[in-house]
């Protein structure tokens, strides 16, 4: 693959996943700073080298990125605190690549930290109470929840294509198997399809074990030019393609089953010049089991309606045709509210061959797709295709 033009002239030089899953004694910024140290150490760079700062969190408000710069006591030349939900960090890496390519910064640090679990946040079922935001006037009266919106997607998919709860359950079972091989994962005890189906319904047809866990955690990614990354401590991972998209209800005429991943995925694959079958590993945001199925279909790994068959029979397991989330995903490893950064971190570690028991056999390409917001309502999607350098 050529390495002198965008985006292949940009690489990920360092990553770090916070080891904690419960940190009641830490703040978000503290977790972010610890992750910054971890990722910079991984790359061999120092905080003083960072001139691009990217970050978002569940609680950072307006100017939150400026607060973060102050906390770290740095004065970067390029800042981006855009928050499009859990996909933000995939999007940040895309933006960082563009900024580095444009000469706006040389070393970009992408940060996330969260204390969602120790703050006892009810992320999926907190539902809507009153709000002064006019945007919510047509959802607030009806008790829309995050899980409820995904559940409506699932029911429509089941009706249209005959997808079953057993097929969705198999996604959760596969993620748990992966987590059992990940020493950092929060939930490592193996489960069966029956366990998922007999767990209580949260919002039909989704059961408790169809839903992601809630944890604390954080992560960091260091992005720089491939040229610079080649001289650094860790094996550089090249950016091959990227894309972003939004999906929403339009004027009340949107096909619910078409999600942002379709547009962002097509863009990323076109940029990378790769086929779906060229991808060795997919990191898919798994807020719920149905999120994985919807995303795989919309990214084009299988046809619309064939997701149920695609995710069964071990096909998305470590030995399947498309291994998905070898770390155990948000369903079993960690989900501190906005999971996008972990998709990139695991993809990079797998491409470097650093994943121990859950390591895939020499993967050369990986796709990470983050979903932010709510499928079935309005959401963002960000896709990143990565590869080992040639």
């Amino acid at each position, binding site marked *: 693959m050529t390495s002198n033009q965008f985006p292949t002239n940009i690489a990920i030089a360092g990553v770090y996943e916070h080891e904690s899953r419960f940190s009641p004694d830490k703040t978000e910024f503290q977790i972010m700073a610890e992750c910054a140290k971890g990722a910079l150490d991984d790359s061999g760079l120092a905080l003083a080298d960072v001139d691009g700062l990217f970050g978002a969190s569940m609680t950072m408000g307006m100017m939150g990125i400026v607060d973060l710069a102050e906390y770290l006591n740095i004065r970067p030349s390029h800042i981006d605190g855009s928050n499009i939900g859990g996909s933000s960090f995939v999007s940040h890496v895309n933006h960082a690549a563009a900024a580095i390519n444009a000469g706006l910064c040389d070393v970009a640090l992408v940060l996330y930290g969260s204390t969602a679990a120790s703050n006892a946040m009810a992320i999926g079922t907190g539902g809507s109470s009153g709000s002064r935001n006019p945007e919510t006037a047509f959802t607030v009266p*009806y*008790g829309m929840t995050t899980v409820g919106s995904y559940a*409506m997607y699932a029911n429509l998919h089941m009706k249209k294509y005959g997808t079953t709860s057993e097929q969705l359950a198999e996604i959760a079972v596969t993620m748990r198997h992966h987590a059992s091989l990940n020493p950092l994962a929060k939930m490592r005890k193996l489960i069966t399809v029956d366990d998922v189906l007999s767990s209580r319904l*949260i919002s*039909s047809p989704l059961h408790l074990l169809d839903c992601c866990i809630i944890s604390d955690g954080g992560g960091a990614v260091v992005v720089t030019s491939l040229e610079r990354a080649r001289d650094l401590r860790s094996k550089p991972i090249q950016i091959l393609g990227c894309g972003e998209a939004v999906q929403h209800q339009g004027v*009340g005429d949107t096909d619910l089953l078409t999600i942002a991943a379709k547009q962002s995925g097509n863009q990323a694959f076109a940029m990378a010049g790769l086929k779906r079958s060229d991808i060795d590993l997919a990191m898919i945001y798994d807020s719920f089991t149905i999120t994985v199925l919807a995303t795989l279909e919309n990214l084009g790994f299988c046809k619309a309606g064939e997701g149920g068959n695609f995710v069964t029979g071990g096909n998305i397991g470590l030995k399947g045709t498309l291994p998905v989330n070898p770390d155990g995903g948000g369903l079993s490893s960690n989900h501190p509210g906005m999971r996008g950064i972990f998709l990139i971190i695991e993809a990079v570690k797998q491409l470097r061959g650093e994943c121990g028991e859950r390591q895939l056999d020499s993967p050369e390409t990986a796709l990470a797709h983050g979903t932010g917001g709510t499928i079935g309502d309005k959401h963002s999607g960000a896709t990143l295709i990565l590869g080992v350098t040639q």
Partner: protein
Amino acid sequence: MSNIEHPLPYASFESLGYWEGTGRDELVLQRCNKCQIVQHRPRGICVNCLDASNLEHFVASGKGTVYTYTVTEQNQAKGFAKACPYVLAYVDLEEGSRILTNIVDCEPYDVSVGAEVMVKFVTQERPDTESFAVPVFTLS
């Protein structure tokens, strides 16, 4: 009867026509007569011509079909926690727009994708002693 205590929506000037309509037990939709677009939610402009001059509200039939739905078994939010299980649904209206709503007055698991439904209005008290009406749907 539904046990839901519907939280008060924030009616901006853009959605005032809609909520005034529900107060008259009318489901009101917005159309741009220049572009022939029906848009929900209502906006201060038409999304096609970005102009307001040809926008009008009209009374919809209130008939529709369930596009998709879920039976909510857990929602901690005020007004809903005690109402579980309740049905959250998207309804495709006869006039071509889709709205989020609740399906009420039935066994929750009797609802299905494609079921025909009809609007009804639930009056909800407000702290200032006025009331507002929320459109919900029942199986036809």
